[in-house]
């Protein structure tokens, strides 16, 4: 049986999740040149927000079809509140400080959020089970798709489309583009850049929340550390696609997901590469790919500017 279609689907699913989270990194970077390392934790709190709605707000045994939209709203609310709060109280006071100060703040915030969930969320000291969408897997030819993955397959492209429309066509979206290009001139043209920055954080958080719910549905469990590694991967995806470019984030995510999956599936079959082929080596190959892309295209796959500030 041909394994390739299934492995490609596996990779695209994983990549879609990276892409959803990468959007937040890339939008915030594009506008304020801040690498928001707490974004992985925004993703994590989104998943916990959704779980909270399911466990503590909805009555027991609510159908997933009713629960899911409410869980998404809960996730988005929690993520957005935390992201906007972080912007207002942690990053804004440091807007004109040296670049390292907000970066270190972001790392500190990431640890603080992890530990806060660990300490105060009930039973969060080990993994928590996440509700699942009922219904068996679907088979299309050789490819099996889980019910939990359908959500990701449907929601990721739709939300990407909505985001593209928002950024290109609406007033606020054009304001974002202008602020990204030149914040000072944008201000002179009457754009409230503070508001634009808040919108960027909020949008990133909503995408992270969708990603968090997708993660819970896909793997059936969430834990307080889920955002750490996934956040790093999503950041990598954003750099791979060209940081600052929202299409780049999605493409970068997909490329990274597919690369990891194919490395796990096929590297071991290359003669002499047996010991480098297992999943424990997949990250190594993903980063080899990142280095190669950055060697030949330092601005990333779709990036327009060279990232001159870090």
């Amino acid at each position, binding site marked *: 049986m041909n*394994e390739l279609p299934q492995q490609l689907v596996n990779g695209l699913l994983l990549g879609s999740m990276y892409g959803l989270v990468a959007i937040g990194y890339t939008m915030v970077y594009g506008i304020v040149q801040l690498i928001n390392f707490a974004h992985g934790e925004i993703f994590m709190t989104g998943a916990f927000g959704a779980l909270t709605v399911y466990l503590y707000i909805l009555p027991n045994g609510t159908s997933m079809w009713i629960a899911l939209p409410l869980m998404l709203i809960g996730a988005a609310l929690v993520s957005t509140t935390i992201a906007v709060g972080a912007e207002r109280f942690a990053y804004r006071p440091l807007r004109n400080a040296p670049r390292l100060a907000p970066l270190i703040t972001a790392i500190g915030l990431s640890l603080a959020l992890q530990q806060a969930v660990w300490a105060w969320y009930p039973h969060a*000291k080990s993994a928590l089970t996440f509700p699942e969408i009922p219904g068996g897997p679907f088979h299309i030819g050789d490819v099996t798709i889980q019910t939990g993955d359908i959500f990701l397959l449907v929601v990721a492209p739709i939300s990407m489309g909505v985001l593209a429309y928002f950024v290109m066509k609406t007033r606020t979206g054009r304001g974002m583009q202008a602020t990204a290009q030149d914040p000072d001139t944008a201000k002179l043209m009457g754009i409230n850049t503070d508001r634009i920055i808040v919108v960027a954080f909020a949008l990133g958080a909503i995408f992270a929340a969708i990603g968090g719910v997708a993660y819970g549905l896909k793997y059936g469990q969430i834990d307080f550390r889920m955002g750490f*590694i996934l956040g790093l991967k999503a950041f990598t995806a954003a750099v791979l696609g060209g940081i600052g470019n929202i299409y780049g984030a999605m493409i970068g995510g997909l490329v990274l997901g597919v690369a990891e999956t*194919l490395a796990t*599936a096929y590297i071991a079959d290359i003669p002499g590469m047996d010991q480098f082929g297992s999943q424990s080596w*997949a990250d190594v190959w993903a980063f080899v790919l990142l280095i190669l892309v950055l060697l030949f295209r330092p601005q990333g796959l779709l990036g327009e500017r060279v990232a001159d500030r870090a």
Partner: protein
Amino acid sequence: MRQRSLIAITAALAAGALTLTACGSRDEDGGSDSGSGGTTVTIGVDAPLTGDLSALGLGIKNSADLAAKTANKEKVVDGVTFKVEALDDQAQPSSGQQNATKFVADKNVLGVVGPLNSSVAESMQKVFDDAKLVEVSPANTNPALTQGTDWQTSKARPYKSYFRTSTTDAIQGPFAAQYVYNDSKKKKVFVIDDKKTYGAGLAATFTDEFKKLGGTVVGTEHINPDTKDFSAVATKVKNSGADVVYYGGEYPQAGPLSKQIKAAGAKVPLVGGDGIYSADFIKLAGASGGGDLATSVGAPVEELASAKEFVANYKNAGYKEAYEAYGGYSYDSTWAIIEAVKKVVEDNDGKLPDDARAQVAAAMQGVSFDGVTGKVSFDEYGDATNKQLTVYAVENGDWKAVKSGTYTG
């Protein structure tokens, strides 16, 4: 996580400072005299108390605590009060080593129970051995810890202060292989491990015996324990045509792995060692985990006559967490330390000698008593003489013992 390791580093520095202070106060005797004229002996516990493996770790801590309390209540050692001090190693070798340094620095500590992970034990052994502080693990199963890295060809005990009450993977892996091949009648296995000391070692001993019996290994894979996405691996398992999967590793990965393998369409059981024998595995593997198997050390605690009292006492003590896979072994490990201290104290006219640590370590070799898990004593390598193992199967959302025995080669 980084923040906690900062705390750990601070703790290690503090421990270092304590060691220096200790140098200046040699006139103190081995144990501190409490006001009532008795001596307090601290038994250290090192286990993962937070994080993924905390279910097992907290069971170890509570069981050790129960043993110490029981000894105090029954006045097992006259004039000595036992106190348990538990440190969290987060299943990280670096944290374990820092904890070991901390225990060594505390002169009241005469024995340490733990750790859970073989990889953590590796980092602690030398620290304890240099201080002649005895360490009894209820859970480490990697053979190299007691029999040296070349244990397959020439056994040599690396550290005289290290003992364990659990049996080793040199027995557990082959025992599982025999069950899978002879009883479950599975001939094609896909072997997966997490590349850690415990998981890789167990997978290797399983594979050797399975091949010897005539089975085929249709694929091998090493997973990355930091991720939860095993879809690529699951697809490989499905296409390999394996009729059973053996996983060397622990339940935080084994649960999702089992679930994703079944979701990918391979309806084959996942078999693992004591590292997956936890109620959390069943929770994480979900409904499709029925029929998965695990081997674990010893006979099932619930069914042993010797364990009835332990189970009842544990319940009465009101611990929040279950005693899990290693509860009985942790109780016995702690009790072994208590027995060794007792012998040392009795041989020294009811007082702790100045070189109490070295004497306790020496006395441990001769300890022998009827514990929760059966007869507890140690062979020349520090391994338990009790080599019982049990196969458990997931049935209706619970582990059910299906076969007890041992591997006889």
